[in-house]
């Protein structure tokens, strides 16, 4: 299980913060396929946020193929499967990367520092073996 935390003063909507937390948890391997996520009710109580917000986050996660819900049993981390087409996948990643790099430039980092940080981060995340092509 991962710690869920939300920051209501952040400019990111709360449901998006939850989506990001789960995606990250799966990506670094702290949430394993088949693991059950807390129910909407439990998480609403724990985080003290509106259950509809959590339900929305869970809908997004399911639509993105990160989780599966089994009727009556709850929401589970899905086996990794790719629901996004290959060119769309590249487009999304490129957009995200440009955002990160723009931040790095404005924070005054050098290209070398960015490369090092990137290499370190790569080790922490669990990537797909082989290729989708």
């Amino acid at each position, binding site marked *: 299980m991962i710690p869920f935390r939300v920051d*209501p*003063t*952040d*400019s*990111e*909507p*709360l*449901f998006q913060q939850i989506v990001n937390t789960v995606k990250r948890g799966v990506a670094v391997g702290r949430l394993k396929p088949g693991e059950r996520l807390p129910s909407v*009710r439990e998480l*609403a*109580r724990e*985080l*003290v*946020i*509106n*259950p*509809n*917000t959590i339900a*929305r986050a869970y809908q997004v996660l399911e639509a993105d193929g990160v989780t599966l819900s089994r009727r009556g049993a709850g929401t589970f981390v899905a086996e990794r499967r790719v629901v996004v087409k290959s060119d769309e996948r590249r487009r999304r990643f490129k957009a995200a990367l440009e955002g990160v790099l723009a931040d790095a430039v404005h924070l005054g980092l050098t290209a070398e520092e960015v490369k090092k940080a990137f290499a370190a981060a790569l080790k922490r995340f669990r990537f797909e073996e082989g290729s989708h092509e």
Partner: protein
Amino acid sequence: MSESPVVFDRVTHYYGSERALDTVSFRVEPGTIFALLGRNGAGKTTALKCLLGFLPPTRGSARLLGHDATELPPDLRNRVGYVAEGQQLVGWMKVRQLVAFQKASFASFDAELCAVYLKQLGLPLKRRVFQLSRGMRAQLALALALAQRPELVILDDPAMGLDAVVRREFLEVMIDLIQEEGRTLLFTSHILSDVERVADRVAILDRGVLRVNAPLDTVKERVGRYRALFDGDAPAAPELPGLVRARRRRNELVLTVIDGGGAVPEACTKLGATSVEREPMSLEDLFVDYTSGGES
């Protein structure tokens, strides 16, 4: 098709010649939490009073659980739990007596549920009301209102004067309430981080006018703040649809825009901006921009 529990249809209210509400329309859907925001004097309490039939609208109509607010049937008060701003409770009564009094007054009052709430909140039954702290009195008022098992709960600034711990307990109660099917909650507040946690939908009242009425999730996406930089002094703000607020400071022009973000960079570039960037905004930023209004 049942009607929304709360419907405001172009409600205008004047105190003498002063307009407190100006054609305010919104509705609260069943099973949701609706937050009505605004600065002091923006008209929040007036709106709730119109809804509860305490004040007749000068024009327009407010409807509460399917009834016109000016003609509410007497038994409707069993179905609505209302806690006024800084609610006055009978001070000399012991908590236990006040509970008995409430039970006698409301047919739907559930004494067992009330006991559960009082225990949960740690409220002493033997203490007299005037001996309780402000936070305890607020919790007591809420417990009494909720023990009626109302379909609709209306809270006027429940957070006023409460510390962070008590406020959090309030939020927990609110969340439990809508987890039970069908409960609907309308509350006013100016503690925006609380609102962000619990509200499904937010509306902002600004000097009697409803400026925003949107799901909380989308409001942050729809409203954007842009910072344009110029060589030399910034020009006056361009005419833009959806412009909420414009601020000028030396070579900077900061524009807050709803639903019109796409046009901002182009408009600013036309005026000679050297860079235009969108900035993240919290609900609090958004609230401030909406309610301070105009160009400065």
